[in-house]
């Protein structure tokens, strides 16, 4: 048990750790901040699960705002929905995987894996901590899906079920096949090395000729799984390339494999020699190793999200004053829906209630809610703040102003305008050169000795097999991916690195990307504020959760708030307070009764009114992100820069002044405009990078060569993109781009290195001098030296670009 320590610990909620000095509920010797936390504790005590509290202190989540309605899971009883969510179902049991964002500590794992102690019908549950997922298996005769979700929710672990969960796309991204192939190749290669010993050591001659033959045949047997199973991906890839009349990296590899295999068979069975089977095994083992290394994935991140990942799976529909929770796909134009506080508007709709406050931070990156009046059209994707509102649906969820983006053709062709990877372009030249050298050698020897001619021809193909060549790319890119990951810049896959290196145009979104809501610039206009008034305002804004209040709170700095006699926040209007019998109002124009239009342009205004007299107003403009001007100036030398913004143009001059005059500004851009803007740039032949943050940038992110989504919480929210950048690494964008260019240089340099080996090998091979021993030394040596070179070079560059810190630990 926890020792009873100072009062500080005692005044914390036993469940969630929130301080609860003023109001608390106590049970036995434990204190709870709210009914919800107490309830969870009681459920756990009843089921003998208090170990939950011993693994980690205060592991729970505050249940204070968990006052949501009981019927919110009703849609799970819908058979269609249930069927689509389940992983597996038979007569007896159902399996389902939930995403639970709250999973954060050992206690979470322990509790979620002990669900069977609470309800025996759940017979197994397993947590994947990194992915924050839990797979639950239950007997559906005894407990329904809805009850499982309600149980999780009652414990404070409410699963997040979004519209995209219904799609059931590829659920298991873990590539087991390549690993299995690597395993097989490793097994065969290891054993082949052993059986090849007699070739390398003269002492083994003592074993006698019989053993040597046996070993050679064993080598042939062991090479079969490698040639016919482990290497299969290379055949398909090479065949596909040839069918499109192209040559990619895999074509020379396959040529090499075939030459290795056939020539060794001939050597072993016809000539009675050793053959090159062990080198063939080594080749494929190293190649597959490189492949696995390149496939570094960031399992917690998702790069392919569309609006469905944010939209709710169900909505509350009103039919003749009766509420009904239905799945979103059953929603029809003309339906009346009820949207409560913090719920998302599911489709473009007309407002039926008097007023609403819609927070579009998902869409635009601006978190200050926009007030809407009765009869106005509200676009899908906004979040209601405040009282529940009624809406009539105008368009189906997939056809809205925002969601229509995903019907654009850019989203249909899954591939970007493909840049030929460096390796593919080189391998074309390489393959033809090697083939012609082999032919020349063959023709040269043919007149003198046919067997040497055959040997020269095949050994040229064998030794020139681009083992080192094809390993330089995966290892360099794989390393770059890891170094970027350390710098909190997460790429979708290795191919993005090469595209990053070739960019010449950078397009920024303004709100939320170049500007940061948290960095607001605030000015006060009007009668000067006394210290006392400031303290009063401080006390008022401290009680409000509105983003503008938070900003004013920060602006006022560390002054001591007064104790107000009465304070009340009116959602969508402002804060009303009484102090020394004077009424203070802080909020919108209508709330404070201000008239006229003579205020400074742009941004948001918060008005102050005391006893009916207007004293002045705060003018709040979103400020630039820290380091934004540094980034823009750093990029201006090498890149063409554009800014796209959905806002009005009033900030153009101040932005141009603060950032760079070379920026091309475009204001009042709709999501589709942004997409088309990028498309126009691409058609002009530019290699574009789009940096954005909201769903309204999704089209542009998709259309650009590389789309980077910038986000404050990496696992939290980002539209589909090629890369996700943690906002705190924003300053390092120029470094990342420079590093991508460097890694391209490193690839080129290591190509040079492997060409040296090839020249050495080929010069021996054309003379018919290549032997199995020489081959067995040369192949691994060249591969390993290339791997070592790329690893050292990328890390060195990483340190120089200050992306890796040597003495971090």
């Amino acid at each position, binding site marked *: 048990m926890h020792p009873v320590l100072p009062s500080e610990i005692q005044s914390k909620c036993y469940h969630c750790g929130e301080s609860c000095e003023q109001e608390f509920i106590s049970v036995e010797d434990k204190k709870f901040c709210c009914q919800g936390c107490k309830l969870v504790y009681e459920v756990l005590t009843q089921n003998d699960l208090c170990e939950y509290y011993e693994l980690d202190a205060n592991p729970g989540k505050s249940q204070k705002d968990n006052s949501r309605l009981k019927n919110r899971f009703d849609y799970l009883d819908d058979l269609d929905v249930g069927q689509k969510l389940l992983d597996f179902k038979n007569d007896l049991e159902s399996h389902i995987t939930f995403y639970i964002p709250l999973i954060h500590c050992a206690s979470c794992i322990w509790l979620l894996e002990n669900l069977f*102690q609470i309800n025996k019908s759940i017979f197994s*549950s397993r947590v*994947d*901590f990194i*992915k924050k997922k839990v797979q639950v298996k239950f007997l559906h005769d005894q407990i329904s899906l809805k009850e499982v979700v309600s149980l999780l929710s009652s414990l404070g672990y409410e699963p997040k079920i979004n519209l995209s969960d219904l799609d059931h796309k590829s659920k298991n991204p873990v590539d087991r096949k390549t690993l*299995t192939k690597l395993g097989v190749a490793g097994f065969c290669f290891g*054993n082949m090395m*052993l059986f090849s010993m007699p070739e390398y050591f003269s002492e083994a001659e003592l074993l*006698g000729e019989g053993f040597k033959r046996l070993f050679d045949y064993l080598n042939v047997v062991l090479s079969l799984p490698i040639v016919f199973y482990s290497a299969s991906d290379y055949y398909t890839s090479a065949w596909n390339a040839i069918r499109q009349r192209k040559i990619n990296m895999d074509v020379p590899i396959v040529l090499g494999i075939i030459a290795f295999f056939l020539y060794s068979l001939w050597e072993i069975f016809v000539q009675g020699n050793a053959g090159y089977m062990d080198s063939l095994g080594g080749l494929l083992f190293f190649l597959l190793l490189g492949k696995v290394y390149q496939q570094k994935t960031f399992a917690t991140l998702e790069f392919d999200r569309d609006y469905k990942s944010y939209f709710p799976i169900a909505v509350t529909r009103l039919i003749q004053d009766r509420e009904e929770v239905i799945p979103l796909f059953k929603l029809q134009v003309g339906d009346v829906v009820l949207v409560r506080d913090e719920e998302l508007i599911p489709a473009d709709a007309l407002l039926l209630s008097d007023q609403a406050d819609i927070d579009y931070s998902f869409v635009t990156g601006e978190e200050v809610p926009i007030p809407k009046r009765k009869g106005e059209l509200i676009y899908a994707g906004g979040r209601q703040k405040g009282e529940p509102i009624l809406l009539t649906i105008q368009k189906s969820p997939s056809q809205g102003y925002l969601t229509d983006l995903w019907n654009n053709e850019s989203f249909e062709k899954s591939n970007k305008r493909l840049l030929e990877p460096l390796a593919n372009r080189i391998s074309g030249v390489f393959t033809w050169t090697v083939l012609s050298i082999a032919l020349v050698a063959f023709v040269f020897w043919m007149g003198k000795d046919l067997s040497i001619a055959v040997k020269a021809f095949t050994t040229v193909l064998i030794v020139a097999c681009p083992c080192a060549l094809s390993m330089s790319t995966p290892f360099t890119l794989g390393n770059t991916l890891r170094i970027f990951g350390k710098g909190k810049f997460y790429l979708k896959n290795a191919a993005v690195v090469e595209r990053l290196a070739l960019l010449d145009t950078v397009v920024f979104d303004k709100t939320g990307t170049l500007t940061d809501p948290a960095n607001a610039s605030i000015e006060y206009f009007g009668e000067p504020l006394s210290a006392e008034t400031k303290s009063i305002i401080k006390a008022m804004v401290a009680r409000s959760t509105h983003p503008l209040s938070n900003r004013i709170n920060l602006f006022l700095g560390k002054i001591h708030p007064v104790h107000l006699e009465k304070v009340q926040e009116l959602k969508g209007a402002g804060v009303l307070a009484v102090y020394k019998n004077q009424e203070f109002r802080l909020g919108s124009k209508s709330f404070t009764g201000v008239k006229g239009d003579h205020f400074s342009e742009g941004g948001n205004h918060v008005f102050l009114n005391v006893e009916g007299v207007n004293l002045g107003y705060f003018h709040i403009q979103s400020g630039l992100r820290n380091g934004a001007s540094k980034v823009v100036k750093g990029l201006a030398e090498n890149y063409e820069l554009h800014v796209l913004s959905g806002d009005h143009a009033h900030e153009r001059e101040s932005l141009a002044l603060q950032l760079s005059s070379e920026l091309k500004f475009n204001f009042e851009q709709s999501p589709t405009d942004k997409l088309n803007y990028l498309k126009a740039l691409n058609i002009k032949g530019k290699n574009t990078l789009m940096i954005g943050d909201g769903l309204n940038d999704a089209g542009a992110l998709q259309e650009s060569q590389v789309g980077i989504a910038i986000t404050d919480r990496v696992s939290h929210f980002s539209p589909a993109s090629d890369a996700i950048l943690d906002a705190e690494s924003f300053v390092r964008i120029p470094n990342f781009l420079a590093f991508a260019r460097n890694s391209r240089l490193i690839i080129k340099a290591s190509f040079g290195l492997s060409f040296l080996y090839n020249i050495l090998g080929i010069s021996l091979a054309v003379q018919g001098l290549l032997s199995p021993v020489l081959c067995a030394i040369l192949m691994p040596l060249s591969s390993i030296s290339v791997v070592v070179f790329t690893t050292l070079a990328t890390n060195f560059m990483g340190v120089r670009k200050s992306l890796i810190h040597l003495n971090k630990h």
Partner: protein
Amino acid sequence: MEVIFILIAVSLILAVTFLFLFFRAMKDGQFDDSYTPSIRILFENQPKKSKKDQPKKTKSYE
């Protein structure tokens, strides 16, 4: 020296066994999540107060 034939057979059988075990582990998904088991192993397997019988206990740790 003929004993080497037997040794070779034994070594190959052994190696194939390991390969087979690797396949099985792969199929079970042992390589899918390499982090959670490191925490799971630290949990007490025995319920502290055995008031209740827990027949399904072993199953959940399959």
